[in-house]
């Protein structure tokens, strides 16, 4: 059963709130990394509207790096986010979801890819840097925020479980 896409307004609203939370949780880098992954991997990608998702992902990358105050040259995270969100949007259009398990599995793959891309791009942009624990926290808590994003984007209609 192919799921209907969430409404654009709802998705943009979630993206905006999550981006604000990314900026506000700067004192807590792990939480910030979770929200960042949630925004880039789960909320921003949207099939057929790649530009808006790309802009949200780029904004998330710039906000994250700006609030971290770690890198001498910014832009690596935004570039990695842009790449991943384009890939995720393409995947969403190419392989439509049919359930939570597939969503989580896709998120897991994207999360690993995102972590690698982010660190590679940041290395290119700013040079060697500490990895931190955000990527591991994102991966470990993926079921939580994956389920949460699933519920936010596809709320139950009351007719049963999806």
């Amino acid at each position, binding site marked *: 059963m192919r799921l209907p896409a969430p409404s654009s307004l709802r998705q943009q609203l979630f993206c905006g709130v999550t981006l604000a939370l990314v900026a506000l949780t700067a004192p807590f880098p792990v939480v910030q990394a979770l929200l960042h992954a949630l925004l880039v991997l789960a909320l921003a990608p949207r099939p057929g509207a*790649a*530009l808006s998702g790309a802009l949200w992902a*780029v904004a998330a990358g710039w906000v994250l790096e700006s609030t971290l105050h770690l890198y001498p*040259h910014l832009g690596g995270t935004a*570039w990695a986010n*842009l790449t991943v969100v384009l890939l995720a949007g393409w995947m969403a259009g190419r392989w439509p979801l049919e359930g939570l398990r597939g969503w989580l599995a896709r998120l897991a793959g994207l999360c690993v890819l995102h972590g690698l891309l982010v660190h590679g*791009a940041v290395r*290119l*942009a*700013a040079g060697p840097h500490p990895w931190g624990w955000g990527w591991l926290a994102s991966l470990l808590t993926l079921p939580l925020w994956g389920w949460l994003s699933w519920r936010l984007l596809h709320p139950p209609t009351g007719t049963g479980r999806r």
Partner: protein
Amino acid sequence: MALRASRWRWSRAGWQRLALVLLWLGHGTWVLMGPASGQRWSRAGEAFSRPSQGLAARWAERRLAQRDAALSLAELRADRTRLAAELEQARLQAAREAPRQAEADEAVRLLGLKKHIPLELGAARVIFSTRPAVFGGLILDQGLDRGLVQDQGVLVPEGIVGRLWSVSATQSKILPADAPNASVAVMLMRSRATGVLQGLGSGRALIRYVSNQEVVQVGEAVLTSGLDRVFPRGLLVGYVAEVTQGDLELRVILNLSAPLDRVSAVLLLPPQPPVEVQPPFLAPDVKPSKKQRGTP
């Protein structure tokens, strides 16, 4: 093929794809430029803006030079105005102080004369002059209150002035030596011939009772003889200006050496001074330009 071509027209989706590609490439370029890109961009920007910066620097220097010139000109003008004001103030001050300065100079000169005369001399200030009037004189600021009496001799460093003619309670009047009714016992410096001075006015006087046998030269100094008991012997009176032969006596006219019209302070000799005191005036031995023998 025709379907793919139609999909890639410049539709809204096409523009979005182009924006995405540019966004991705732009970010990628930015990332690949690395951490030193800022310096590279800065260097490129500096190289690009060097001509305009040079022009701006020259313009700023020109403006600065103009401002400095204007400031220096303004400062010079302000200095000039200030100096002019100070000069004017100094002139006013000098003009204000001039009488006092002249009086001080006169006092110094009187003090010097006083040191040379071994007599008890007093000093007085001339407060008014009635010389332009007939039988006019000089009014002093002292009188009986300072112990002045009639017939005290009055002199200044240049020579004798006259004698006290009348003394009131607080003022005195000098009878100048050139007054028609003045008389001073004098003697010629070289011939030692004595006579009596009689005023002719305007700083001139006539010496009477000089014998035709005397030899008088123009320019010869005339001193007091001390015989009148008003002035001691040897005080300078003036210099012979003209000598003419008379029937019985020489007509000797002299110019008084004391500037009677410009006297502001005088010394007062004691009453009835001794005839002989050390003469304070060493009259210069003036070589007369025109010699004239008094004898026929």
